[in-house]
């Protein structure tokens, strides 16, 4: 072996050694942060969900097994909150998907108005949810809201309606605000996917005498399927855990009309001072998320097998 060759081998060996350490060292800060701020808190929440832990007397927290879960599931609040949350999630996710797709199709057109819209459409997603909540609360306000003003000026109502003071009105208002804030991201993702569709494919449909609708159904939708799935999963999780909007717009009311599970968890812990049942609720909500994700993945798999 020549000297040069030996040097190369030695360098390679030294590099091997360094490679051994590099990934572990590089991952250390991330792992420490996640351990402190994710694994520990989740473990703590899991522990407290199995104990009777009240903030009013934190010294004693007897182990009660699944008692908290049983208590939560048996309560009428939980059932109504679960139904509200599921309805809210399904409706807003579906509307967001359809709107996002429609927006993307419009914004993909080679027009100046479409290019301007592509930029502005990001705004609802850029601003804090708290600000979005304040704006939509204002719009639906019962004494000065422009939504009332619009209906009033059009002659559809004789006097202003306190939308946020009625169960259905409040639920719809929170849903509209949530859809408004959520639509930009799907729009962005759909736009990116649309721009990847080869022009020849669309032109082939065109040559075969198909219109824009056929192009959408036979070319765009099948190719968009993976993106639709990503958006559906992401949006479902976001909707299931909606908190800020409810906090700012309705405070869970009127009554418990807009007490989504995430807000209900907050009320249990911070108003009811019951960390045990609050944590149990949170884990149930996590379970619901997992069921949804599982269902989507199952759908995706069964479709790809076809």
């Amino acid at each position: 072996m020549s000297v040069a060759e030996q040097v190369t081998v030695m360098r390679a060996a030294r590099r091997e050694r360094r490679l051994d350490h590099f990934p572990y060292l590089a991952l250390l800060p991330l792992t420490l942060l996640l351990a402190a701020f994710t694994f520990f808190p989740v473990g703590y929440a899991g522990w407290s969900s199995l104990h009777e832990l009240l903030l009013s007397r934190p010294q004693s927290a007897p182990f009660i097994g699944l008692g908290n879960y049983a208590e939560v599931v048996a309560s009428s609040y939980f059932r109504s909150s679960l139904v509200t949350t599921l309805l809210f999630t399904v409706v807003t996710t579906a509307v967001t998907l359809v709107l996002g797709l429609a927006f993307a199709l419009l914004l993909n057109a080679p027009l100046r108005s479409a290019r301007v819209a592509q930029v502005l459409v990001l705004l609802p997603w850029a601003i804090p949810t708290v600000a979005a909540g304040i704006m939509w609360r204002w719009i639906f306000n019962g004494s000065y809201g422009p939504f009332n003003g619009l209906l009033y000026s059009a002659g559809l109502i004789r006097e202003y309606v306190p939308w946020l003071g009625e169960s259905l009105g409040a639920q719809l208002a929170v849903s509209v605000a949530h859809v408004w804030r959520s639509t930009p991201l799907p729009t962005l993702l759909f736009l990116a996917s649309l721009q990847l569709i080869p022009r020849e494919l669309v032109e082939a449909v065109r040559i075969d005498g198909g219109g824009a609708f056929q192009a959408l159904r036979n070319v765009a939708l099948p190719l968009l399927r993976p993106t639709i799935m990503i958006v559906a999963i992401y949006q479902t999780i976001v909707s299931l855990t909606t908190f800020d909007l409810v906090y700012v717009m309705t405070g869970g009311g009127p009554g418990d009309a807009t007490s989504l599970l995430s807000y209900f968890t907050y009320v249990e812990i911070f108003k009811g001072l019951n960390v045990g049942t609050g944590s149990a609720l949170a884990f149930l909500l996590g379970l619901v998320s997992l069921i949804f994700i599982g269902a989507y993945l199952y759908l995706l798999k069964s479709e790809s097998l076809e």
Partner: protein
Amino acid sequence: MTTARFGSAFAQRLVALGCVGVVLWTLAPIAWISLASLQTERDIIQVPPYWVPRAMTLDNYGYIFTGRIPQAMVSAGASSGSRISQEARRLLRAVGNSFIVATLVGAGNLLVAVPASYALSRFHFRGSSWYETLIILSRLIPIPAIAIPYYLMVSKANLVDTHLALVLIHLALTLPIVTWFLAGYFRDFPRSLEEAAALDGCSTLRIMTRILVPLAVPGLMASAALAFMTSYSEFFFALLVTQTIRAQTAPVILAAIGNNQDVSLALIAVSTVIAIAPIAVITLAFRHYIVRGYTIGVEK
């Protein structure tokens, strides 16, 4: 794919109209509250509203920036809905706090996530495959559930009401997604340059800082921008671990102003505009990077 390309002039006009509709839907709430911020309390509560403002004034902004009470409020006296909120005077400092925290979170994300995602993208080691799954799964937990342990940790470390507490929490919230995104981004990079440098005896650290980082600037900008945006908007933990204007961020103060039953509407409007203006400008300015960051997963 385009729908308009095939269409007649009529179809094109229809699509253009649709785009205008999208913009109207997107801007209407922002436009309405911006207009309200330029009007007096009396004009804001008109029934039906003035669709075009009757008169515009900067007095409401004047109060936030200088503390001078708007003339319209002085003359209206203590009558309903004309009240001042002390919180509104803290808004500018809160926006400043938001910027400090968000900037540190953006920078911290790069410092921690770049080596981590480089390691995940280039080296196979024990547990490297489940590590990525685990960090993504960790974001499934509803936020209120981990609030108490977060608060306990922050107070044990004597960090209540500090920027540092928020920076650490926001780092933990954003790092999983940024690391996952960057790992995917680095995997798509050609490795020939790195291999050549390695043959020349360059250390892994040097390869990362001298070769990878300069090439990855767009992805890094996207990551930092996403972390910045998330941190600027985050509300729940900011509410939980701050107590005074030393550390309170824009969403916290904005929610306090907005949820104050007695506060003037004009002040709510001005505060909302001031809280969203900086982040809106930044997002639009960096939109190429941000859009690229979010769409890279779809393009694969």
